[in-house]
């Protein structure tokens, strides 16, 4: 029995126009970490949305196509690894690029991230240039693609 019939991409819907030009979803239970990573990405020309727990992020991914997910590990209700696994099980999430960001430094933790389906694993808080370049690489954007900076911050 297919679970995917209702996520039929040929069905009309307002949210299927995403893809590489779509928004980025930043997922972290800390408002400051979200703001920090969001401002780095907004400065690089991305539109950014935020979610405060892993399950809330899953609900958003189910409804909308994102260009990129930036996912923390330790979050209430649903942790980041479980979120990534669940996202990969959704039609709209099967190939969305995912950066996991965590305080964990152990190799075992990055191995788990890749096992669940993340594309890149960074240590938190992400170094701005590294996050920016990784995001651009994963979404296929070039420096020239970046539009006017988002409202948040003025960090370079």
């Amino acid at each position: 029995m297919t679970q995917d019939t209702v996520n039929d991409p040929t069905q009309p819907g307002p949210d299927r126009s995403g893809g590489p030009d779509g928004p980025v979803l930043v997922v972290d239970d800390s408002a400051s970490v979200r703001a920090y990573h969001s401002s780095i990405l907004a400065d690089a020309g991305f539109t950014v949305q935020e979610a405060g727990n892993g399950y809330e992020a899953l609900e958003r991914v189910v409804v909308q196509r994102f260009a990129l997910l930036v996912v923390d590990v330790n979050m209430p209700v649903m942790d980041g690894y479980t979120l990534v696994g669940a996202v990969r099980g959704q039609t709209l999430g099967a190939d969305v690029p995912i950066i996991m960001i965590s305080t964990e430094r152990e190799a075992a933790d990055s191995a788990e991230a890749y096992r669940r389906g993340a594309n890149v694993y960074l240590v938190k808080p992400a170094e701005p240039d590294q996050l920016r370049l990784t995001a651009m690489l994963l979404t296929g954007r070039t420096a020239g693609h970046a539009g006017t900076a988002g409202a948040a911050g003025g960090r370079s």
Partner: protein
Amino acid sequence: MSPLRKSEVDEVDGAGPDGPGRDQPLPDRLARLVDGDPDRRRRAVLALSDEPAALPHLIARVGLEPDPAVREALCAHLAGHDDPAVVDGLAGLLASDDAGLRIAVAGVLQQTRTATQARVPGWLADPDRDVRLLVVMVLAGLRSPQVEGWLTDLVEHDPDPNVTAAAIDELAGLVRAPCRAALRSARARFPDDPFIDFVVTRAMAAPDRERR
């Protein structure tokens, strides 16, 4: 005549394909906690919810249960038991390598107010930075008048920048104006950390903050 039919729901005790109902001997019901079928294990957890003697078994099961839905049923039940046995039985799991388990346990500890409160001071001194981070997560949902003081303590003294930043964040969501002296001491403790600088600036700059 309406094609809608009344249901044939019988109000029976939970006996049936699940096995022992509430009037069955406790050992039989406990045995279901390790049944091979996750759905039977889950129902066993729910069926033991009004059995005080089952508590130690349910606590012990949290770290061992592989199925996330069964683990959630265990945690949902234990969250309603503000009992030192629950807190002491689960606190060690905050250090688990399993992220799902860690945060499930943190979720329980947020709810077991009185028992958790008694243990927080010890946890704040845990040498493991990752445990302290989860303690901040617990404090984020814990209903205790001492939370503000504990968070301020972390902001002023924690040796790890991520823990300090997490504590600043939670404190900023708790009070109209986090103590500026504490924020300044955090910044002084991590002078080259751009993220601490970001978090402190944010906490100080919110609209209409009083000076304290």
